[in-house]
């Protein structure tokens, strides 16, 4: 069974039909890149997967469980699905270390020393262990985003969702974040990334999907996707961003 199985997912904002029947399976260890024009529903789609958004029709299975089931503990589910946002969303009143240890301590009841040890090793992995005692406002954008990644990883998630993690960053900081993501991908993390970084997609993605108007228009392995897209809309989109 696939790690994530999305079946005919529909979502409305009022009258507005944002997601119009999305079906997508993501295998364990697979890296899926999602691209598409602004407003096409990419964010909405991945936020449905950990139920930050509710949906009205269709099913989402995570690790064999329907996430909309009554018996599912939503908090436990979310702990297993990490999410990284465009705006970092670090907690400004906590130090970097506390940002990372908050959820393990409060949700998993991990002892403080253990949580801190894990946090420091994760911060080292993303290359900022020397900043552990600073506050988010004292870090650069790229550093903040790497803390955000470490914060998600601290819950030892089975899947990581990324929503345009580099588009709020200055160009010179994009690579430091992408490198962390590439490492993660190579280590076998299951990932869904909304991103327009096509270099990243080429390098590590197993599959690229193109969304427009709330549906998946086209999907293919990256080589094929970039070298010979079949749909007009995809071609137009690629022409614009490449």
């Amino acid at each position: 069974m696939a790690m994530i199985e999305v079946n005919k997912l529909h979502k409305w904002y009022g009258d507005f039909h944002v997601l119009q029947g999305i079906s997508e399976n993501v295998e364990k260890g697979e890296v899926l890149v999602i691209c598409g024009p602004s407003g096409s529903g990419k964010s909405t789609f991945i936020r449905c997967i950990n139920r930050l958004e509710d949906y009205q029709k269709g099913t989402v299975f995570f690790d064999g469980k329907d996430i909309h089931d009554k018996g599912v503990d939503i908090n436990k589910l979310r702990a297993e699905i990490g999410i990284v946002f465009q705006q970092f969303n670090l907690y400004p009143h906590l130090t970097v270390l506390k940002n990372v240890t908050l959820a393990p301590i409060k949700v998993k009841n991990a002892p403080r020393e253990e949580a801190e040890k894990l946090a420091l090793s994760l911060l080292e992995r993303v290359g900022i262990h020397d900043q552990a005692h600073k506050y988010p406002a004292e870090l650069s954008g790229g550093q903040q985003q790497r803390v955000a990644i470490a914060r998600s990883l601290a819950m030892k998630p089975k899947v990581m969702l990324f929503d345009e993690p580099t588009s709020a960053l200055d160009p010179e900081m994009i690579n430091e974040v992408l490198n962390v993501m590439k490492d993660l991908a190579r280590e076998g993390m299951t990932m869904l990334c909304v991103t327009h970084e096509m270099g990243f997609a080429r390098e590590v993605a197993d599959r690229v999907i193109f969304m427009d108007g709330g549906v998946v228009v086209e999907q293919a392995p990256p080589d094929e996707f970039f070298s010979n897209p079949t749909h007009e809309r995809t071609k137009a989109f690629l022409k614009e961003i490449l």
Partner: protein
Amino acid sequence: MRFDVVFKNFDYFLWGAFPEGPLGGLAMTIILAAVSIFLAFWVGLGFGLMRNSKKPWLRYPAMVYVELVRGTPLLLLIFWFYFLAPVIVGYSVPELQTTVVALVVFTGAYIAEIVRAGIMALPKGQMEAARGTGLSHFQAMRYVILPQSLRNMIPSFVNQFVSLTKDTSLASTIGVLELTRCAEQVSNRTLNAPMEIYVTILIMYFVICYCLTSYSRRLEKQLSRYQARDR
């Protein structure tokens, strides 16, 4: 100018007839304000959180409370409690307690509004990030949202405390011996120096309230640094 009347009675303005008689005057004003703000904080926090809740059975009662109280003059509210308390509890409640209840109910509604607005002012991403790592709604509130928003609200709380301090003067209308009532008493007894007496206590109120107001302004400046912002 008959400021000698003021000097002779200044200790009465400060603490009433204490220690021979009951405590009163400015001391009573401050106690009344401090006790009321402490209680009103918890009332306001509770109702403010309720107003932000998604559950209608929590949100609507809080909304009704806030709107009712904010639409009613404090004097009327004090009188309602003064008038109703004996009926409800069955024996006569001392004026002081009545006043505290009225002030708490009154100020609580305003604090609820501050709390609600303060929580709403935080970027949505804070809640989402917290929920995204598996924290429950309550935990996210407790560890992520409230620590930030309460800190941002401190200046508003101080301002509310200033209003409350001024509002305690209304307790004089039901006979609580706080600063205003003491002034009235002295004025009624001496009859010849109302202007001097009222100017004096206006200045006494002013000193307290102005210090608090300045403090809240300073805080506001300091706080504008570490705040989560939408970029």
